[in-house]
Every structure is written in C-alpha cells, then in structure tokens.
C-alpha cells in the first residue's frame, strides 16, 4: 500500500555497480567474454519480443541485461588493459613518440601525462596513458606537445603488504598504464604541437591565472589558492594538507561538489541580477562551468559535480520535480561508463557517499538537534550526516577517523566559501588588469586564509584530532550501513502515524548490532603466534604478535613506511617491544621513524664497535621519547608470555670483520616446538663464531641473513639450522641480492625459499606445533 516513487536511474545504477563488482572478483578470458556478449544480444532480442507482447517478464530481463552489461563492460576493459601492446615493452629501453595531455609541477619533479604512445621500431601503438616524471630538468612541456622520448617503460609499484598502497592500481584507476622517467634534455625532444584550439586557450588561461596568483600572493597562500581555484595541490605544503586531513577538511582542498555548488550559486546570483531567462541561465552556467572544468584539469570529482548541477538546472528549466537520488545515480552511470574503474576509487566512493549520506541523514539529524537557528542547524546536521555516512569508508581507506570534523567544518567552511567567491572576482580583476581592485581583494583573501591557517593549526596542535581505528572488514561496513539505514527508518519523524515498518526495522537494528558485536569482539582471533615478514624493499621489517597479543617488531625497514601502514591498518598505536638487529639504515632507519609516531615500550639492541650518526640519532630520540633501551648479548633471554627470545649473538669481543653486520643481534625464537632464527645481516665470520659456540641453532624457519647475500648463509650454517622454510627479505637492489647460489643452496636441501620481493609480505601462523604461511601477492 506504500506509494512507489520510481527512480529508474537508481535501479540501473545499482545493477550496473553490482555487475562491475562481481566482474572485479571473477575475472574471465576472451572466450567467455565473447560468449557473454552473445548472451546479452540474445537477451536483448528476447526482451524486445516480450516488450511487444507487453509481457510482465520484460522488466526482470532488462534488469538482468543491465547487470550483465556492467559485468561484460568491466571484463572487456580489464582484458583490453591486460593485453595492451605496451605490455610487450615493459622494462625495455625504447624510443617512443607521444602526446602530452597534462603537465603538473610536483616541486622536486615535473610530471607529464602522455597518451597516443607510438613505438615505431617495435610497431606498437597504444591509446593508454603514461606518467612521465622529469627529474633535475624542466622541459617545459605543455598540453598538445608531441614529444620523442628515450626511456624505459615500467609498471608502477604494486601493493606488497597488507594495509599498503598500490600505486599501480591507483594509476590504473585513472587510466594510466605505466610510468617512465627522464633525467636529461638529450633524451627528450619536442617534435610538434597538435593541440585543440579551445583546449589550448583554456590551458593558457590556466597558466595565466597561475602566474597571477603567484604575482599577488606569497607562500603558502599562493599554493592554497591554486588548490582552491585551480584544483592543483601538487605544491601545497604537506603540513597544511596533513592538518586539513586530520580535521576532516580534505574535501575543501579538492574541487568537488562544494566548490562547484558555490560557483554555480554565484552564477545564479549574477544571472538573477542580469534578469537572465531560465534557458539563458542554463547555457551561461553550462559554458562557464565546463570551461572551469577543463581549466581545473577535468578531474572526475569536478566532472561529477558539474554534471549534477547541470542536471539540476535542466530539471528546473524543464520544470520537472528533481529527485536527488535519481539524478545522482544518473551522474554515477555516466562516470562509470567513462571509466568503470572509478567505482573502486576512494574519491568516487567518498563523494557519492557524502551526497547520499547528506540527503538521507540530514533531515533526521536536524529534527533531533536542539538548535533553533535553521541555517546553523542545517550546517551542523549536514556535517554530522557526512561524518556518520562516511565513517566506515574513511576508516577503511585511512584507518582513522577525524574526531573534530564537525567543529572544524563549521568554522572553516564559511571562510573557505568566502575565499572562493572573492577569489573568482580577484581572478577576473587580475585578468582585466584592474590592479587596485585585484590588490585589495588579494589582501582580503590573505587575511581570511591567514585566519583559516591559524584556526586549523591551532586545533590540530592543541587537540587530539584523530582516532586510529584500523581497517574494518567489508562485512562490518555492510552491517554498519544496515544499522544506519534502519535507525533512520525508525527515528525519522513519521509523516503518518503507525506505519508498519517500524517493528521490522527495530528487529534489524537489534540483530545486526548483536552480529556486529560478535564479529568485533568475539571469535576471529585464533590463539597462536603470528609472524609477518613485511615486504619492505631491500631491508628487514618483521612484526610478531604473541598468543597473548604482545606486539613486537624486529627491525623497521628503511623508512618504516610499509610497517607504519600495516600497523595503522590493524589499528595498532603501541608496540610492546622492538629489536634492532644492527645499526644499518635498512634495519634501524624505520625504527627511528616509527618511534616518532608509535609508542614503543622497550627497545633491545646489540653492542656496537663505534657509534655513528644513525645510532646517535636513535639513542637521542629514544631518550626524548622515554623509551627503555637495553643492550643484549649472547646468553640473554627475553621472555614474552609463552614466547622465548634466546640471544645467540653477538658475543664479546665483537667480530672486527664487517663489524656492523657480523655483530648483528641473532635471536632464536622458541614457542613450544616451533623455532625461528632471526640473523639480521650476519655474515660468514659471524656464522662461524656461532657454529664454534656450539649453540643450538636448529629451527623450523630461518630469516636468511643479509637479504640472501652470498657473504652469508654458508653451507655449514644452513645444515646446522636445518630449517623447513627460509624467508629472504629483499627488494630491488644493486648488490645482486639474493645471490642465486644461496637460493640454490637452500633449494638443493629441499628447503622452501620465500622472497618478499616475489611473495610480498609473508604471514606465518603457528600454534607452537604446526604452522602455515600465506604469501600476500599470491592472494591478490
């Protein structure tokens, strides 16, 4: 008996998205793809026949066709991507001709987006895009330049660790196939320019505006203004961006619905002033906004916003009632047709999620907020709605949530709106060379921006702004949204009394909450010892979690980045202890970085022959952070619940040959029957001393010394340990690690070898008797 509000585009959008999601989990090959395409055609024929018969089944078939189209679409794009001709030249030195699409300044490097790639001597052409970075040189390329380039095409880094970031996927989602570098002018020649006139003029205008901003403003205001007006935040200081992010204000720094909405409102006011007709207003908006879109680099968030505004205006012009959900779905369909991968981007999910959350939750929240002032109430409930609606997504992608985002949005959003509006007039005045007005407006903008920075920095420095929650599972996210949805249905001020759904939704809330609590608190935590050898490049970084959940680190990689992301994704802020195997940058470097951010209770380290800069830096920092540091030598024993760390080396007097490596901390972990030997960068001299000491070395797992170098892992040493599994922590390097000879030495003895460069992070789980392991890249 409920009145059905038809939202056809929402239905199509949901089916399309379902098709895309299923496709992303079920890759198929060309044969199946062709088969499915045939199925689609047959179904279309059946549907059109049934349509003529006015059968009621036609709806179900059309739904299925849309789902299938989404599935087939993603598969074909994916297959096209995988079979692109550029795949044949990855890693090769090639001479290519390409067209420059976009140029951006990253400060330390210049980045260019290339397309129409032609490699004549290999007979290859590709319409994919490539990201070219120029270091040390400034070739001053612009849109439309055709360049000839000697370079090596590479795929960007893929994700190697849980919680890590896949640059390759990130680029793929934007249609960028690979990356290339250029370091000298000799490798690069501009051979022609083939630019579309309108585009070129708009890009010129962009450059002009940029130079005007640089003329009227000094740092960092020019960078903020470039981000706000031109959507270019490549030079924005990290500290500002970071503080904005921590306060939940990031959305203000990308050109999104907020900016486009404000601009469109400004245009509306102007149109009203000039007594524009509805049609004229529509055209005026369209021309202005699409030019702006191109000037700002046609990024998807702004395209999304412009499309939405345009549809709203069109609806007004046609005098049709506007249903936000239907329009939003329409925009979503267009974006997904342009680039189906964008469904999986953070930006797509956050911006669509924000609009849906605000439309859906604001009315409910505002009716419960005890604030009389309508505008203030709306502002606060809107921020709250966005925050509540995006909470799971934000924690999924950034592992933390912003605690003060409502407050800071309330303070900063009006100021930024003001800057944006005045900024538009400033640009106009500056372009028309009305210097006095431009100067005046620039001063006002500077004052406001100064205030903005003061407020943001003050809040970020005085308060705890974020809460690390870790990465929730997809199931948790789904349950969360189910609860929110039902809560809204129950709490929504009902138009008519005693609607029936009340009881159903209450039941849903109770059941899902219980389920959520079980998932969050209950099972899932198998008791046992977890060891994860993170893939941290040519370095060591090993994380352990004991059966009673003590958190332990052995070395921290070069900069600790991967470990940091992993720990954050797990919601871990504190470590019980860390071991430093020796004071080389690829072992202690990350520890130094990590203790700046994480609380570490105790750190153990080996004795050293002489202090160097790194060790001094470490001890200074440890003292500042009040971390208890303890020197370990052979014979020491660290007991953490049921897990024992026996220190086997170094022993005094220290080895004088290659002293840092050879005096590495050697730990033998013993958990019931399960033993792991961690040898740091121990080399042959150290191994010999260990063998001579007649210590019990026998272990189930060996962390191979010195990244598999042939100066370590001597035959006698391996035989004494007699492991079942050898893990080599290694990445791209110039030393030839791991040595083929060493790898073969293990293999010849039937010892399984895992390399973190091939396997990604290696996760081990043991109950003290048996163990199992997982390779991260194999799972992907």
């Amino acid at each position, binding site marked *: *008996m*409920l*009145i*059905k*509000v*038809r*939202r*056809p*585009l929402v239905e199509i959008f949901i089916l399309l998205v379902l098709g895309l999601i299923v496709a992303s989990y079920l890759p198929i090959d060309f044969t199946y793809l062709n088969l499915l395409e045939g199925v689609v055609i047959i179904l279309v024929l059946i549907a059109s026949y049934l349509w003529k018969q006015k059968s009621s089944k036609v709806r179900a078939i059309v739904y299925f066709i849309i789902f299938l189209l989404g599935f087939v679409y993603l598969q074909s794009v994916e297959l096209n991507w995988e079979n692109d001709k550029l795949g044949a030249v990855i890693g090769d030195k090639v001479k290519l001709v390409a067209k420059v699409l976009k140029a951006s300044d990253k400060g330390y490097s210049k980045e260019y987006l290339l397309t129409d790639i032609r490699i004549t001597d290999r007979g290859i052409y590709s319409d994919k895009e490539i990201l070219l970075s120029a270091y040390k040189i400034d070739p001053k390329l612009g849109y439309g330049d055709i360049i000839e380039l000697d370079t090596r095409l590479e795929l960007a880094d893929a994700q190697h660790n849980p919680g890590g970031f896949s640059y390759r996927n990130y680029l793929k989602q934007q249609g960028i196939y690979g990356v290339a570098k250029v370091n000298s002018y000799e490798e690069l020649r501009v051979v022609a320019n083939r630019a579309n006139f309108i585009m070129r003029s708009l890009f010129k205008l962009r450059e002009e505006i940029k130079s005007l901003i640089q003329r009227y403003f000094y740092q960092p205001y020019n960078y903020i203004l470039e981000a706000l007006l031109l959507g270019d935040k490549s030079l924005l200081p990290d500290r500002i961006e970071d503080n904005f992010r921590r306060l939940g204000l990031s959305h203000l720094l990308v050109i999104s619905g907020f900016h486009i909405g404000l601009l469109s409102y400004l245009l509306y006011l102007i149109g009203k002033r000039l007594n524009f007709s509805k049609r004229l207003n529509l055209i005026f908006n369209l021309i202005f906004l699409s030019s702006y879109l191109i000037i700002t680099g046609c990024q998807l968030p702004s395209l999304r916003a412009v499309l939405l505004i345009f*549809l709203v205006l*069109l*609806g007004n012009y*046609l005098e*049709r*009632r*506007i*249903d936000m959900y*239907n*329009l939003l779905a*329409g925009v979503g369909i267009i974006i997904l047709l342009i680039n189906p991968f964008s469904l999986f981007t953070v930006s797509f999910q956050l911006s669509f999620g924000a609009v849906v959350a605000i439309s859906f939750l604001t009315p409910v929240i505002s009716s419960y907020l005890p604030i009389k002032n309508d505008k203030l109430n709306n502002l606060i409930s809107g921020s709250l709605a966005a925050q509540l609606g995006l909470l799971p997504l934000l924690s999924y992608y950034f592992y933390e949530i912003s605690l003060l985002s409502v407050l800071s949005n309330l303070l900063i959003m009006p100021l930024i709106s003001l800057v944006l509006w005045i900024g538009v007039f400033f640009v106009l005045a500056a372009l028309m060379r009305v210097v006095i007005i431009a100067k005046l407006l620039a001063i006002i903008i500077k004052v406001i921006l100064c205030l903005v920075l003061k407020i943001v920095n003050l809040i970020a420095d005085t308060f705890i702004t974020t809460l690390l929650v870790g990465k929730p599972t997809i199931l948790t996210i789904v349950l969360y949204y189910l609860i929110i949805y039902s809560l809204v249905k129950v709490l929504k001020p009902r*138009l*008519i*009394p*005693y*609607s*029936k759904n009340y009881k159903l939704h209450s039941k849903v809330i109770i059941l899902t909450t219980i389920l959520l609590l079980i998932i969050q608190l209950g099972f899932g935590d198998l008791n046992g010892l977890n060891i994860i050898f993170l893939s941290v490049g040519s370095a060591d970084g090993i994380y352990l979690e004991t059966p009673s959940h003590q958190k332990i680190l052995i070395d921290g990689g070069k900069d600790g980045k991967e470990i940091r992301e992993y720990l954050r994704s797990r919601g871990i802020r504190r470590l019980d202890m860390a071991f430093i195997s020796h004071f080389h940058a690829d072992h202690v470097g990350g520890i130094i970085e990590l203790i700046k951010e994480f609380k570490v209770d105790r750190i153990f380290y080996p004795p050293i022959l002489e202090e160097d800069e790194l060790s001094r830096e470490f001890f200074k920092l440890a003292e500042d952070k009040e971390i208890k540091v303890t020197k370990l030598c052979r014979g020491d024993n660290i007991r953490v619940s049921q897990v024992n760390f026996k220190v086997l080396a170094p022993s005094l007097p220290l080895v004088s040959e290659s002293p840092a490596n050879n005096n590495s901390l050697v730990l033998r972990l013993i958990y019931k029957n399960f033993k792991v030997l961690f040898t740091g960068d121990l080399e042959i001299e150290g191994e010999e001393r260990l063998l001579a000491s007649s210590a019990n070395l026998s272990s189930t797992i060996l962390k191979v010394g010195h990244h598999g170098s042939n100066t370590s892992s001597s035959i006698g040493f391996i035989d004494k340990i007699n492991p079942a599994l050898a893990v080599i922590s290694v990445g791209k390097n110039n030393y030839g690690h791991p040595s083929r000879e060493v790898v073969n030495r293990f293999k010849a003895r039937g010892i399984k070898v895992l390399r973190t460069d091939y396997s990604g992070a290696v996760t081990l789980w043991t109950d003290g008797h048996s163990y199992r392991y997982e390779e991260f890249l194999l799972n992907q």
Partner: protein
Amino acid sequence: MKTIFAKLYQGLIDLIFPELPHCPVCGREFSHGEINLCEKCITKIEFIKEDYCLKCGKLILSSQDLCYDCQHANHYFDQSRSVGLYDSGLKEYIKLFKYSKYRTLAGPLGDLMSNYTNRFYNIKDFDIITYVPVHPNRLAERGFNQAFLLAKRIGENLKIGVECLFIRGEDTVKQSKLSRKERLKNLKNKFIIKEDVNIGGKRILLVDDIYTTGATVDELARILLDNGADSIKIITLVSGRDLSLKRDFNS
C-alpha cells in the same frame, strides 16, 4: 523520423526526471513514498494519537479514560477508533471525497485507516469487514458509497473479505441535521439485515467515514449482534471532540 527522436528525447527526460506521484488533493508532486498524499496535505491532518476515549476513540482530556458519552451510555460495539479529528485537513478531504472526481482519495484515506486498524486491533481477530450502507437513491445520485470504498481498501490492505450486510430503508432526513435524541429516533428501523447472510459467531470490523455520536454504528452493531455476530469493532476516518473537551476548547 522526427517523432522517433522526440520519443527518444522524451524517454530520456522521463528517465532522468521521472514523474513523481501527484497529490490527489492539491496536485503537487511528492516523493516521500508513504501514502498517496503530499507532505503538506498530510501535515494538515490532525491525527488522534493519544488522549482518546478507550471505548469510542474520540479525542478527550488527557486526565480522562472515557468520553462523556461513553461514561453515560453503553454501546453495543466493543471498541471504536478514528484516524483523526473532523477538522481542517480531514474535513476538507471528506468533503472532496463525496465528488466522484476525488474517488481516488479512498486510497490514502483507506491506508490511514488500515494503519490504525492494524495498530489498535489484532487483524487476525476479524472474519469480515462490512460498512455502513447508503440508500439506493442516494447511491444512484452520488454514484458510490464512501464507506464501501474505504472498507474495500482496508480489506485489500489487511487481506480480509468485505461483505455487504445491510439494506438501508428510506432516508427522509439527513442524520447530520438532527440532535442526538432525534438521531436515535430517526434511526429506528432504517437498517435491515440482508436475508441470506450468515454471520453467526463472526467477528466483524465495521467501517464508516464519520463518527459523531456513534448512533449509526451502534444501531448496526445492535442488529449484527442480534443476528448472532460474536463481536463488533469499529474503525472510522474521523470523529469529533468530546463534549468536555469542547467546553475546555471554547473557554
């Protein structure tokens, strides 16, 4: 060719801006997806949600349990409930509902009554729904009986069969133009139960549009009980305020 493009264009526009339901009262489009009335026309209704007479459902002072009538007289029916007050919104809709142009109002109004029935009664307790009849002459004049349309809608919503159980005798004077005493007198012998109905032991929901003194539905309840019905419950769209409340209201 041109028409194909025009059709395509129209189809696209309809896809992007699908037509929303129109409010049958004011014609405005709405998208709340509850009943077939727009937000504005719904908020005009004064729903009875609390402070109702436990017996007849009329709005009363919150300090009381029963209205003046029910304190002083007994009813044949078990209970009666009304959706709202015979005031601003519903008064207007009932007036409009008399015209055949607004017959579709049976939808939203019947839905409201279904909600109330569902809330206050256990719908499994009903065997039949019936309604207050009009005289054939009046039916011919107006073309439909509102009470029947409402009952039909409720029956569809709650999946209970609707049956016509009465014949109405000659209607000389309109009930609404008489005082309470005159009404009771006027009612005598006006309703006759149909001959072939079998309502022995049946539990019956009786539907009407307006409840004022309750004389009409009470008379029908009496007839039904006399003919062996087990119990009678009443649902009406509107009812008046209790006397004591009126006094309070006026002073």
